[in-house]
């Protein structure tokens, strides 16, 4: 339960802050925008792989723990 709250609260704060920050970005800096776009793509793809691998590792660890418990 505590872990769920730890995940949910930063997400809400991030969304609230992000909706304000977006409006402050300059619209005509094409080169900066382009470089920023690459960063966003890399971050998005990194998030996807980290989330998936995180779930894989989490399942593997829990399986190992429960098997050890069953073996006792």
């Amino acid at each position, binding site marked *: 339960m505590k872990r769920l709250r730890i995940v949910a609260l930063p997400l809400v704060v991030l969304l609230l802050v992000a909706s304000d920050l977006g409006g402050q970005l300059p619209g005509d800096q094409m080169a900066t925008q382009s470089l920023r776009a690459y960063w966003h793509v890399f971050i998005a*793809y990194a998030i996807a792989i980290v989330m998936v691998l995180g779930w894989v590792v989490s399942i593997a660890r829990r399986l190992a723990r429960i098997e050890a418990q069953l073996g006792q």
Partner: protein
Amino acid sequence: MTGKGIRSTGTALALLGLVGMLLVYWLSFFWVSTDRLQGVSQRIFYIHVPAAWTCFLAFGIAALTSGMYLWLRDERLDRAAVCAAEGGMVFGTIMLTTGPLWGAIAWNTYWNWEPRLILTLLLWFIFLGYFMVRGSTENPEKGKRFAAVVAIVGALDIPLIHLSVIWFPQFLHPQPVVVKPEGPTLDGDMLTVLLTSLAVFTTLFFGLFLLRYALETLRAEVRARERAATA
């Protein structure tokens, strides 16, 4: 399918999904053409949309198995529901984090309080509530029943999310480009990468769902042994 069968099928599908994910990454970065209007940021589409699809599929399965659990009271259905809901949370988080990263470039804002985005965030919170409700009761059986109702209510949000862009076209979120009456309006190579990514995410989800289900089955076995030992 036996416990071992579930686990080996899950492992095979998960490995296939992980290899497929490498393929999707390669296709997205090196093969598919760059969108003329949006530039490189459009490549986020190839993970954002499949993550959204997998999230809705997972929550749909969670709701369906929850409904069947309320009807048949079969523990296996509840186990399937919790495993699917966990997968839905993982893919939902990918969808909710990659979307703003794309929006920051395409719309010049990370977040816009529009119907589709609000309803999607609401879905994520409903399923967060699903896990909270499960663990909040003294009697685990009661918790499972309450959580099953939450899952069904949450899934009612899914068609609203899909229809919201059609009902409210004045907002920033784009209209569907694949599921349309007149057929997909995406370029051929983009459609190929999208469909590959959809297949890969779905395979990965089912693989990990089966492994998660195997874990939940083992947990039930441990609980049964503990009960037998104390009796």
